């Protein structure tokens, strides 16, 4: 651990040195009329979350092209620089150092909280503004970095929404929570436990499974004996689908639902249409459930020839917001962009008006509840 920290420090220092020399050149050249603003994009484009990363990259590219077509920001074009964090903390550190040393003025993206946490420290040290458009662990704002802004509501807010749905809407009392021991899912499980207890419910089971395995029946049999009214899975869709399938097969009581990490149609495919029926999803608003996003979806489909994934709309909005802040800052100075971002007031996005609290999180949570009906997600 110690040596790892030292290595991290050394990397950070060396990158800080690098970034101290290289960006000057960029600055000088951008002083002229032909300047560009370099913005980094950090997403996972390999590994198990690769699809999410591709989705986000597409949405960010789309927003950037639209901004550039309209003349860019005060005549300067945005240039994107992509870095893959593979949803892995070590790769993420390398990706962050790469982007910082290339002299990016801001970074956007971030799908996995586990990868976002270590890299946000590197950006913080270099003073680079960070726009997080998918990762939502409450640990990210808790670090207290003033450069970091989240356009998705945090796990704290998601926990509140989940607890409220299970206790008030479903009228449940006994809640079971299952996670997979990853940073994001365990955090969400813990905050949900607190939220359920605070709202007067009872957590009858708090379990973890190994997502690399496929058989969760032993754990589910234990769960069944507790007779839960609602079961909440906080991790990702691949194991979530199996969990729902085996949950129904064993006939565990009550409803089963998932957090926004499992918001993917593959969840229903893996679970099977019958087993997934009536499962609920607590999620940030995705494009297909926002009436105003219709034209966004059409353009996205015709451009990339696929359905927009769950984090495309937020990423698209995040890029627009970032460009807006750079415009408001009046320069591409990093500190000025950070200041402009923190002063964002009611910026119009698909998910609602965005203003930031002092810790960089959304002032107003925007979670919605989806339910599976006939093999489709439908809005409650």
């Amino acid at each position, binding site marked *: 651990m110690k040596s790892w920290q030292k290595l991290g420090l050394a990397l950070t220092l060396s990158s800080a040195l690098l970034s101290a020399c290289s960006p000057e050149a960029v600055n000088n050249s951008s002083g002229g009329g032909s300047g560009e603003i370099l913005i980094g994009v950090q997403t996972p484009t390999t590994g*198990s979350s690769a699809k999410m990363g591709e989705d986000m990259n597409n949405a960010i590219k789309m927003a950037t092209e639209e901004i550039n077509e309209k003349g860019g920001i005060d005549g300067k074009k945005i240039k994107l620089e992509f870095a893959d964090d593979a949803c892995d903390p070590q790769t993420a550190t390398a990706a962050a150092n790469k982007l910082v040393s290339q002299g990016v003025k801001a970074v956007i993206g971030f799908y996995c909280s586990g990868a976002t946490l270590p890299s946000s420290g590197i950006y913080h040290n270099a003073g680079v503004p960070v726009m997080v458009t998918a990762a939502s662990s409450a640990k990210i704002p808790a670090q207290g970095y003033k450069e970091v802004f989240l356009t998705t509501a945090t796990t704290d807010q998601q926990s509140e929404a989940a607890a409220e749905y299970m206790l008030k809407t479903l009228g449940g009392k006994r809640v079971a929570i299952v996670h997979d021991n990853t940073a994001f899912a365990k955090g969400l499980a813990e905050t949900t436990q607190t939220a359920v207890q605070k709202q007067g419910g009872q957590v009858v089971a708090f*379990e973890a499974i190994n997502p690399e395995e*496929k*058989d969760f*029946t*032993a754990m589910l049999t234990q769960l069944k004996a507790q007779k839960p009214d609602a079961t909440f899975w906080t991790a990702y869709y*691949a194991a979530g689908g199996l969990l729902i*399938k085996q949950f129904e097969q064993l006939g565990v009581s009550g409803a089963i639902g998932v957090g926004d990490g499992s918001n993917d149609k593959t969840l229903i495919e893996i679970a*099977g249409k019958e087993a997934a029926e009536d499962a609920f999803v607590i999620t940030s608003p995705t494009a297909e459930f926002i009436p105003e996003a219709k034209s966004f979806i059409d353009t996205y489909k015709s451009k990339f020839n696929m359905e927009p994934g769950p984090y495309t709309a937020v990423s698209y909005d995040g890029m627009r917001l970032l460009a807006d802040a750079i415009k408001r800052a009046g320069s591409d100075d990093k500190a000025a962009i950070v200041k402009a971002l923190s002063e964002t007031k009611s910026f119009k996005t698909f998910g609602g008006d965005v203003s930031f609290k002092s810790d960089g999180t959304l002032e107003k949570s925007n979670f919605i509840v989806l339910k599976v009906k006939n093999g489709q997600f439908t809005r409650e």
Partner: protein
Amino acid sequence: MEMFTQQMINALIIGSFYALIALGYSMVYGIIKLLNFAHGDLYMVGAFVGFAVLSLFGGGTGLLGVVVAFFAALLFGGLLGIGIERVAYRPLLSSPRLTILITAVGVSLVLENGVMKSFGPSFKVYPVQLPTEGFQIFGATLTYAQILIILLSVLLMTALHLFVTRSLYGKAMRAISIDHAATSLMGIPVTRIISLTFFIGSSLAAASGMMAGMYYGQISFMMGFIVGLKAFTAAVIGGIGSIPGAMLGGLVLGLLESFGTVWLGSEWKDVFAFSILILILVLKPTGLLGENVTERM
């Protein structure tokens, strides 16, 4: 009682998968003293071959498609096993054990990343899945698919046991495991028998991969890693090199995991199962059925 029965059923299913893969580990170790770490990945390859064949048949795959896919997985897995042995292990048979062990790790990585590049990194949903209907027995749920899995495993294991103990080829295998050189002096084609061993072990793993795909319904290029590790553990518990030991080891590990969950909670099940493993090995280093040297193969 209801809980106990249900956990026994759960254990039996997990144990069957472990046992089928453990058999291949044990056979290969018995005959050339190699821990074939690529073995778990043959389970994964089997699942993907089944996936490819079933996808080829399209949506309306009947029983015929499933049977064809099953034998395609079996055959392809077996031939791949022979190929791996020929290319990666046979040239190294006389080098130190460590060299060939590292080669096995390399083969494992080649298979994982090869499948990732050809099928993509995301999870695949199996085109045909076993139905989840079943009936109640002592208050526990037992599905027809589970009965099928248990029956098929027992069938494959019995067939293998009879083959090794009764047939001439089986006799040759057992002879090689006792003394390589002497067997070859008797005029037995040692390399051919080793190939045969790889074929049988690998096809069993591939077949169980296909079964797992249809039963659980979701596959990925990394699915062989944990299962391979667990199956290796099962082989060691049972006594590596012993065929009945591999079967027993699979069941014991399945039971340990299920009842570890019951007694200590799901987060502790691996801690529990592997503590027992250490205990078994300290008290009986040869594993549960490992002492009977003449029965090794």
